């Protein structure tokens, strides 16, 4: 599995310009709408992107609400309902569609009888939390190193460059697998609570640790080009401190590519969590994540196809909607980057 990072990179600096758009690009809007409002206006006109926004918002709402719903007892990912299972058939759910009923709309899982919908919802929450944290940290590391490298230049720049080379030379998937024993042990020794916390944290850390180089490269390039513009010179002339220049002058000009990159990292990390879970790394049962819920369903391809397919479909829905959102955001923010 490759994280989409490599693909993202190439999409990031596309700028395909149609002949007609060449003409348009010269124009500047006389009404002076802000670029953000313009982008939003463009975004709103794209039906697919709007649909993606709606779906991702729903996922986000679900992610925010399911811990609350769990506390309220509306969803319950943990309590077994073995009374709903048929002991004679190897504890398969009784009844239609894997034990579907009003209280268990997607049925219950074989063996233990936990509610499938609850596990999916709560699992999606954890997967999205992991993806969100990892994406934020990835973007943060990449941005900081990219800005520092791009702005400082010289030895620092080449040091960051070597660090990027080094990081990219490691086979990421293998490292994610191989380091889990080592790093999880270390973190547990340092007092990180064992179980879901340390395993989840591990995923976040290693995904970020191997995910940042493309962003650093992107940002470094952007910084180099922004650096040449007058307003930065002006800031330097006015005696602004270096840190101020980084964060006050340069960062605001980078948010558009970062936003796009971030939106595309989210689904990549949701997939990565699932893949790592398949390989035995990450948060383990009973705490549900999309990855381990899918992992637990894989055996049921023949005997309970619905139970087998649904978790994968949820992952696919998240990946597709976030990707479309990211594409839409890119198109809206940079109309010249065409698709």
């Amino acid at each position, binding site marked *: 599995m490759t994280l989409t990072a490599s693909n993202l990179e190439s999409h990031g600096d596309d700028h395909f310009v149609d002949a007609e758009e060449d003409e348009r690009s010269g124009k500047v809007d006389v009404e002076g709408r802000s670029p953000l409002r313009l982008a939003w206006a463009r975004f709103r006109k794209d039906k697919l992107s709007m649909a993606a926004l709606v779906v991702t918002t729903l996922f986000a709402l679900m992610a925010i609400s399911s811990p609350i719903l769990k506390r309220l007892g509306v969803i319950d990912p943990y309590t077994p309902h073995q009374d709903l299972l048929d002991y004679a058939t190897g504890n398969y759910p009784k009844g239609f569609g894997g034990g579907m009923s009003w209280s268990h709309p997607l049925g219950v899982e074989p063996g233990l009888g936990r509610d499938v919908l609850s596990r999916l919802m709560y699992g999606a929450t954890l997967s999205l939390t992991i993806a969100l944290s990892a994406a934020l940290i990835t973007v943060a590391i990449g941005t900081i190193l990219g800005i520092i490298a791009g702005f400082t230049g010289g030895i620092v720049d080449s040091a960051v460059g070597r660090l990027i080379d*080094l990081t990219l030379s490691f086979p990421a998937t293998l490292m994610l697998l191989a380091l889990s024993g080592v790093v999880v042990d270390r973190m547990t020794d340092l007092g990180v609570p064992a179980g879901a916390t340390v395993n989840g944290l591990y995923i976040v850390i290693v995904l970020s640790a191997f995910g940042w180089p493309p962003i650093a490269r992107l940002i470094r390039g952007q910084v180099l080009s922004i650096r040449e513009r007058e307003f930065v010179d002006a800031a330097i002339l006015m005696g602004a401190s270096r840190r101020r220049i980084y964060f006050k002058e340069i960062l605001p000009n980078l948010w558009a590519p970062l936003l796009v990159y971030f939106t595309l990292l989210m689904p990549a990390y949701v997939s990565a969590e699932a893949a790592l879970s*398949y390989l035995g790394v990450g948060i383990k049962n009973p705490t549900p994540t999309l990855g381990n819920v899918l992992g637990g369903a*894989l055996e049921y391809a023949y005997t309970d196809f619905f139970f087998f397919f649904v978790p994968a479909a949820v*992952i696919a829905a998240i990946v597709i909607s976030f990707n479309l959102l990211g594409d839409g955001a890119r198109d809206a923010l940079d109309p010249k980057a065409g698709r």
Partner: protein
Amino acid sequence: MFAYTIRRVISGILLLVVMSVVTFYLFYASSSTPERFACGPKCTPTQLDTTKRALGYDEPTIVQWGKFAKGFVAGREFPDDEKLRKAAPEQVVECPRGCLGYSYGYSKPVNTLIKDKLPISVSLAISAFVIWIAGGVLLGITAALFKGRLIDKAIVGLSLLAFAFPTFFIGLLLLKFVAIRWGIVELPKYSDFTDNPFLWVSGLILPAITLALVYMAGYIRMTRAFVLETMSEDYIRTARAKGLTRRVVIGKHTLRAVLTPLVTLSGLDLAGLLGGAIITETVFNFNGVGKLSFTAVQRYDLPLIVGIVLLLASFVIVANIVVDLLYAVIDPRVRLG
């Protein structure tokens, strides 16, 4: 160009040296007990200790790295214990120059293991590569040419779908239904190309498709974007203004330009895969380097992990150099220096 290559190779070697140190410290200096697996079940603490000494895990990391480095440069003999080597010369395993260590899980030199498994991973990588490049480029061009039309939307939509489902899920779906339940293809199994090319192909087809799908999805989108980008270039307008036919404009001028980034990216992607596709190999039980590395992780087989990490890194580094050189060949504007 020669001087450039030399310079790149030297910096690549330096990078590998740094990587080997980093990797050693990441794994060997950790608190885990790699000897437990080797020691076996019902292992007493004393036996655990003996095993640890026998495997040399009791020495400081830097000493272990030193032995590794020396072994790589000058070759090495196993077992590590010199007394034992002298007493029982029949047990000595020669690990000639380039030695990456000795896997205690497999009781073989890492190099031998990799040499055995590499053909499987390479076969898988190359067959997947053929599928994804052929499919990705053709479909990407088609989508670009029919931009905004139904066929474009269908291609882009399907590629997104292929991209969205986890690889292992697609692999299992193919294995469980296409191969086992419906029996449309033989059970995937690796055969040597030299033994029987037909079996080689038929055994590879499902894993290769699985592996190719996710890449193909990316390449469709990339090719499509490259083609659209190129078609908006001034020189394509020039070509049209010359009165060239659409076929020449697309087939010659556009493709020639699209080729360059595609060659670069696909070269790097292929290099990343030559060293094994862990998930696909695991799903289909292909004993390539990917599965070897997975087994190594399961067994805490540190020399094997380190050896594979460094091998894969060298693939990536070499691929980078090759791609840069290739770039100079296919893009007349690039001059190396």
